[in-house]
């Protein structure tokens, strides 16, 4: 009987996904959205319907932060916990919110009304602090707005009836260049393609020297060519819109306002490599963009820019599915993303082989960044040479930067490659800047002496996050926030990252709690080396970057945490007796342990 309840909502979902086990993550995500969590009977039903072992389904559900196998609140409130949210007061707001609703962070309220927790950066750093309520983003939290939300929840007003203003996510485009100036007309790049042929378009992409905008900077033309030349039963195009790097939000804007240009770039790629199917892998935090993107796709189908016989070409069939992530930063890594697309846990694969030969369903697959596809459309339209003439010799074109933190005008800034960090700071109205974190938590942290460095693959390669910290900020706390981010997002596959990121977070907490000594400092440095040299993927390699950079450049922030000359425990010994004191009612001197300063 119980399973009938679940069959009722699962059947339409299963039908929509053709009972395809590769769509397990999408099915689970929708099940969670409908029912509030993945009920054990739902798991059993899916296991039977998809012919998948229950343990496999549970393993997938257990991997993604936004999926849960036990009841959540009717209202699931997640405060974005990026350092930029914290700088805008998110910690106090969450404390206030929890107090107003008598709920403890990390738990479900006793009446089941709501649950409150934190989540990794939601990509609203330019308009934070932000939260997700039942996966829908709310920006610009203030004590007033948070109070109003608490009231709406207490009165059980459905989220759909909340003031639209709460959900008014702004694009915040501050500086436009070739990509953002909005000249692109849908269909024009495809028309150019059909006019000159896909071989010529590939050549234009190669001539343009376009490099991947996810940060690694692999040549887009080469990637398309390798993929086209790879043998397979089918080829696939994947657009990586899982921008989880803290501080990045350009894809949010590109997909909100320039989706046509992105989809057109994917379609160009499809034609070049011979793909019939493409995926937009959209991070779960951008769930609110889904309806809009579906409309754009539908429009493109009705304009014959997608679907069968695109623009009347009998051999040109291509369509795009949108897959949503469910709260896993590691899925931004292309092989983990493909695993996720296949409905699995988002564990990065062993490479080689690379996705261009063995990607989605083990077939040749191009995975490109949102911005890369948008640029490809422009190149098809205006030519490779034109594009190559912009930027620097090895970094052609423009780069969109997501600027947030301590500056007057946060938002998107598009510059030709080669722009200096100092120029960006001047344009965004940053004053008294102490540090700039580029490329998010895994990127690099610059001190003022380096502000003359350039945004370019030959100097500072970046997916575009640029977080500004003024002199009032504590760079140790910045690094600590990032280290916790990595511990939370580690997929757990390899030993060094699974255990090491948590050890690192604990060590940083130890310093923060006043238990630091030079011993811990040396330990952190040793751990950093180990993570960098033995981790399975970039997440583990990068997990130490924020610490290494801030140690090197902002050492006083650490020095003041090395309070003790000699090793002291990571925990407070006196506090370790608290439970025993409470149980015995004792408070005599023997019931306490003094701090261990006097010990060596």
């Amino acid at each position: 009987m119980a399973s009938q309840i679940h069959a009722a909502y699962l059947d339409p979902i299963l039908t929509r996904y053709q009972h395809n086990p590769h769509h397990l993550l999408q099915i689970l995500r929708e099940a969670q959205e409908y029912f509030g969590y993945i009920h054990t009977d739902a798991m059993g039903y899916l296991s039977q319907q998809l012919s998948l072992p229950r343990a496999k389904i549970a393993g997938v559900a257990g991997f993604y932060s936004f999926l849960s196998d036990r009841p959540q609140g009717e209202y699931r409130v997640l405060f974005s916990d990026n350092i930029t949210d914290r700088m805008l007061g998110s910690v106090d707001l969450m404390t206030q919110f929890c107090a107003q609703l008598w709920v403890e962070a990390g738990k479900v309220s006793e009446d089941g009304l709501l649950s409150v927790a934190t989540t990794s950066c939601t990509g609203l750093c330019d308009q934070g602090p932000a939260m997700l309520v039942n996966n829908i983003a709310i920006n610009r939290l203030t004590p007033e707005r948070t109070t109003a939300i608490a009231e709406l929840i207490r009165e059980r007003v459905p989220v759909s009836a909340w003031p639209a203003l709460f959900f008014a996510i702004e694009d915040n485009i501050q500086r436009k260049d070739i990509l953002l100036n909005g000249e692109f007309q849908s269909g024009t790049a495809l028309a150019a393609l059909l006019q000159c042929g896909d071989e010529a378009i590939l050549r234009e992409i190669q001539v343009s020297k376009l490099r991947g905008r996810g940060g690694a900077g692999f040549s887009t033309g080469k990637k398309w060519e390798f993929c086209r030349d790879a043998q397979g039963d089918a080829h696939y195009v994947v657009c990586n819109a899982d921008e989880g790097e803290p501080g990045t939000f350009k894809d949010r804007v590109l997909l909100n306002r320039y989706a046509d240009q992105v989809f057109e770039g994917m379609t160009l790629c499809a034609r070049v490599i011979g793909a019939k199917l493409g995926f937009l892998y959209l991070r779960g935090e951008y769930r609110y963009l889904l309806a809009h993107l579906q409309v754009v796709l539908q429009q493109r189908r009705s304009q014959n820019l997608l679907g069968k016989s695109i623009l009347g070409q009998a051999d040109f069939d291509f369509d795009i599915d949108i897959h949503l992530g469910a709260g896993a930063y590691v899925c931004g890594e292309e092989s983990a993303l493909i695993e996720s697309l296949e409905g699995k846990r988002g564990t990065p694969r062993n490479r080689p082989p690379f996705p261009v030969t063995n990607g989605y369903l083990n077939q040749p697959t191009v995975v490109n960044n949102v911005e890369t596809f948008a640029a490809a459309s422009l190149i098809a339209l205006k030519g490779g040479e034109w594009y190559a003439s912009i930027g620097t010799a090895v970094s052609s074109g423009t780069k969109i930067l997501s600027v947030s933190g301590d500056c007057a005008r946060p938002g998107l800034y598009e510059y030709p490659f080669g722009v200096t960090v100092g120029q960006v700071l001047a344009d965004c109205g940053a004053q008294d800047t102490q540090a700039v974190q580029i490329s998010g938590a895994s990127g690099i942290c610059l001190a003022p002496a380096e502000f003359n460095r350039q945004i370019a693959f030959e100097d500072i390669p970046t997916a575009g996050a640029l977080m500004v910290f003024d002199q009032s900020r504590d760079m140790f706390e910045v690094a600590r926030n990032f280290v916790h981010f990595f511990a939370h997002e580690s997929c757990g596959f390899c030993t060094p990252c699974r255990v090491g990121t948590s050890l690192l977070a604990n060590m940083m907490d130890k310093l923060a709690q006043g238990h630091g000594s030079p011993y811990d400092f040396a330990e952190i440095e040793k751990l950093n080396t180990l993570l960098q040299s033995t981790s399975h993927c970039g997440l583990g390699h990068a997990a130490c970057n924020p610490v290494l950079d801030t140690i090197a450049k902002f050492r006083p922030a650490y020095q003041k945490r090395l309070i003790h000359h000699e090793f002291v425990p990571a925990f407070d010994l006196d506090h370790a007796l608290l439970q025993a004191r409470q149980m015995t009612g004792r408070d005599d001197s023997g019931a306490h342990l003094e701090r261990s300063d006097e010990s060596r």
Partner: protein
Amino acid sequence: MSELDKFAPSPLTPLPQVGEGNEVKKLKVATTSLAGCFGCHMSFLDIDERLLELVKLVEFDRSPLTDIKHCGPCDIGIIEGGLCNAENVHVLREFRANCKILIALGACAVNGGLPAQRNHLSLATILEEVYHAQHGLVDGFIPNDPELPLPLDRVHPIHEVVKVDYFIPGCPPSGDAIWKVLTDLLAGREPELGHGLIHYD
């Protein structure tokens, strides 16, 4: 990056060498058992007749062997057992403050051992179960005499609370392993346990 010792053991603290100079100055050694079972001390006695050789080289300070109650300045401190209560912490601190070299002897000192098997339960649950809820208890109460050391909320191996120089794992470590480490240290060598001497059970 600084020149770090990676994950190698900490560098040897220099000990005064036996037989240096004209007079033979004996090294001072202290031993204790914290949250342990004295099994490691029993194993220590398993070095048998080599004890006679040892006492030519060392003099025992605080130890169950001497019944000296507090530790004075020593060259080597040997700790059996982990930290289960406040008194364990006091004794460990006394040893750390007085001993040039501190050795964790046996599983409990090294990783918490058997006592640490309680760590997945809250102390409150344990005390409730033992003194209130257990079948057959009438008017049970949790002892609160100030003479009694209060238990810590978790059992800790000693390296989580003080810096430890050397570790001899085993439950217990064999007399041979203990002898090997001590003689290595007395000879100024980095202690090393080969196959068969290093074991965790």
